């Protein structure tokens, strides 16, 4: 009469489509939450999911309801001291008075709606802001590839990996080993028999016994299995992560008074994206932060983004420091070097030629890529002109002027074109 079915193996993700619809429907709110989350994150910390919270009132599904007011009659359990005709002051908040009508039954109506975005979903929202083309998004979102590499042979594996030659070789070895003793015995017996036959004693009892024994031995040797599960060998394969080299990423930023929070935020996204790109291609990445106004200083990330100083701007101070750190800690033989520089374009005019010299002589020959962004600059100044001149002669130097987040990506286009990942 009853039928019992095991459904556990059946499709799990029945709600995946509904979830996708939910994310699409509330993309505006979610994008804002993602954007806030990005601002709070470290730049090497982009690559994970996030707990997102959006106001619950944005996603209510309304129905016609009674509002407060009118006459309500309700029965409640647990009477202790009331008798008929008693009058009770109205409880605050109207909880009792409205109890039973839809409104208060919904309980947690006012809290924010909190849920987890997966890593992919989070990155997709992040990329939406940056206007990344799909192909690049895919490259960035994909998990690091592993490559199958051969690693000797093993005794177990899938039939597809069966190594025929090896298996036969060990079968032969086993047959030899197992047959050695009986064969030696056989040879001895045959020797004895042929001696008897030479004497002409072919039909004696002794000879007959010998023949019978030879027969059993031959059968024993024949009974040794041609191939046995014991002989099987499989090619052994292990997963080897694809990116194997290491890289260092220098973040240079002008922190003089003219770089305000908005500009810093754009700069941060620019750094984040570069970092993410590098994580896809290199196994190990170090990040060095250098900030500068008139003098440069190596700092940690927090200081980098959050301290504000005033004063003039001497870009060469940062470039000189960059060159020195490369000399000391990151020899090009062991490191791929990337530099990202963000600034509002201000520089002390006499300093610009020095920057040019530092770049062409000491920096560009050693770096994989140097990206410069000028954020919300008023009009091109001496630094921009100098850099433009240098870019014309170097293929690992890219520069852009950007007014908003969506313009960050074009800087990377060159990068991706040069380096098919």
């Amino acid at each position, binding site marked *: *009469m*009853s*039928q*019992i*079915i*095991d*459904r*556990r193996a*059946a499709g*799990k993700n*029945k*709600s995946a489509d*509904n*979830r996708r*619809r*939910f994310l699409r*429907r*509330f993309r505006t709110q979610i994008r804002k939450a993602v954007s806030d989350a990005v601002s709070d994150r470290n730049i090497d910390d982009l690559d994970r999911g996030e707990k997102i919270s959006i106001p619950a009132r944005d*996603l*209510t*599904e*309304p*129905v*016609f*309801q*009674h*509002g*407060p*007011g*009118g*006459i*309500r*009659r*309700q*029965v*409640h*359990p*647990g*009477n*202790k001291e*009331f*008798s*008929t*005709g*008693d*009058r*009770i*002051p*109205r409880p605050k908040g109207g909880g*009792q*008075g409205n109890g*039973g*009508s*839809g409104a208060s*039954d919904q*309980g947690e109506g006012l809290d924010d*709606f*909190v*849920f*987890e975005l997966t890593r992919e979903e989070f990155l997709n929202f992040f990329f939406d802001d940056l206007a990344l083309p799909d192909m690049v998004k895919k490259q960035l979102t994909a998990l690091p590839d592993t490559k199958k590499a051969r690693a000797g042979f093993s005794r177990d594996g899938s039939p597809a990996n069966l190594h025929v030659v090896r298996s036969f070789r060990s079968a032969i070895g086993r047959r030899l080993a197992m047959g050695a003793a009986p064969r030696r015995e056989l040879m001895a017996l045959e020797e004895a028999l042929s001696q008897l036959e030479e004497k002409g004693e072919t039909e004696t009892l002794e000879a007959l016994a010998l023949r019978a024994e030879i027969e059993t031995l031959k059968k024993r040797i024949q009974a040794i299995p041609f191939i046995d599960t014991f002989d099987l060998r499989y090619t052994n394969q292990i997963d080897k992560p694809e990116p194997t080299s290491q890289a260092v990423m220098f973040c240079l930023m002008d922190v003089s008074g003219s770089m305000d929070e908005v500009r810093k935020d754009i700069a941060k996204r620019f750094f984040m994206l570069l970092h993410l790109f590098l994580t896809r291609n290199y196994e190990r990445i170090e990040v060095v932060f250098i900030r500068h106004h008139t003098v440069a200083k190596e700092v940690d990330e927090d200081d980098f983004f959050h301290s504000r100083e005033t004063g003039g701007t001497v870009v060469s101070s940062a470039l000189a420091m960059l060159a020195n750190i490369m000399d000391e800690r990151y020899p090009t033989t062991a490191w791929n070097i990337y530099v990202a520089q963000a600034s509002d374009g201000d520089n002390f005019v006499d300093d610009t030629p020095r920057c040019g010299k530092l770049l062409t002589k000491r920096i560009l020959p050693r770096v994989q890529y140097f990206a410069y962004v000028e954020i919300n600059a008023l009009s091109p100044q001496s630094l921009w002109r100098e850099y433009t001149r240098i870019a014309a002669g170097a293929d690992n130097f890219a520069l852009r002027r950007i007014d908003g987040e969506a313009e960050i990506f074009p800087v990377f286009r060159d990068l991706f074109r040069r380096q098919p990942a």
Partner: protein
Amino acid sequence: MSDKWLSSGSDWTFELLEKYDQAIGALARDFGLDTYPNQIEVISSEQMIDAYSSVGMPVGYHHWSFGKAFMSTQKNYQRGNMGLAYEIVINSNPCIAYLMEENTMTMQALVIAHACYGHNSFFKGNYLFRTWTDAEAILDYLVFARGYVAQCEERYGEERVELLLDSCHALMNLGVDRYKRPAPLSMVKEEQRLREREEYLQLQINDLWRTLPPSPDVASNRKKSERFPEEPQENLLYFFEKHAPRLEPWEREIVRIVRKIAQYFYPQRQTQIMNEGWATFWHYTLLQTLYEQGRVNDGFMFEFLQSHTNVIYQPPFDHPAYSGINPYALGFAMYRDIQRICTEPDDEDRHWFPDLVDSDWRESLDFAMRNFKDESFIAQYLSPRLIREFHLFAIEDDDQEPELKVTAIHNDEGYLKVRRTLADQHNLGNREPNIQVYSVDRYGDRSLTLRHYQSNRMPLGETTSEMLKHVVRLWGYDVRLESVDPKGNIVESQVCKANPDIRH
């Protein structure tokens, strides 16, 4: 271990499930429970969350609100804020019950007794389910609905379908026929009829909304004051499906789908206490009988009783966990009480329930299960003894009075009043605003007038303006909502204008 025990550990296996199901099923038949065949499906907790978020429909069309439900359930479950229900049971033939793999053997046995024999026999026996739902056809219909919605999304775009579904869902509670029996569902028929229907319907609508001036003799026959609809219509979705001027055929079909599903769930909303009480009564009775026969051991019973008592706990009104009457508690207590009145009546029972006293309790319970809904069940069977046990008291909250008034408690004068009030409280018609289609300005601006028939001066809540937007989306022209007091005076009125650019 005794030979008679069905099992002794807490782990379940498929063989044990079968053994328990057979034992419980045989007992249920002895007690006279009439059920659909059972289809018991073992699922994982993730699948349970899936089933949850689609309101228990085993196949459903896609919509963001189900995604939202899924995500909030998943979050609460992962954080440990809530356990999952032990079971979900679907009113279909065969009756599908989901068992979660994490449950212990005891819990699985409880669920089998509760869902596969309790709920199942209720679905098959209760008059509301027999009248309003079609257990044979619901699965087919849901498959049809899912396919149809997906097809519309492909043709007209996800967003358009989604907005339409939003509006339909908002009006779902006003999409049921309360008194008229619906035609039985059939997937094949639905599909066959679809194409002819779409064309035909559009013709009908066009005729109703003919913009050419009618020929003079027709016009003279038609009185200007002729009302449309002739009678107020309580089923808003049905009215829109048939008469909304600007819906396209596929949109009408989607309105119809939501309406059919609303109709299918309507009896469940009216029989919470009866249905849960019935299932709880039977899991208790069946497992208790197994124990009395020595077929389950003490450990089994301890675990069972612990979760059983949790389920039927009724916190008092001043308890922090209080959120109204617990339908499991009240329902269970009422069925037990009926059983008691039949078998061990006292003088009070002889006075209040002369028909029940000394009758066969199985027959009396069966009669009660078949022929009532929550409202009438309470009005018929709530005994003074239970009112005393629950310490029930009635409160009147009148916004024109400064204080609340206790109108009745558990004493001789109060019994009837408490019972009447509690019954009214479970009348869906009282809980939800009564809103009906009142009239359509057919020869003017095509605006629609809805009427909210107020009871006890209760006004509409703050969602109303949002809701009117949904009504406008379906109707396509201006919508007016009037609140009317029992004397027929309009006490409040709101208008929601249609945005002429919103469509097409």
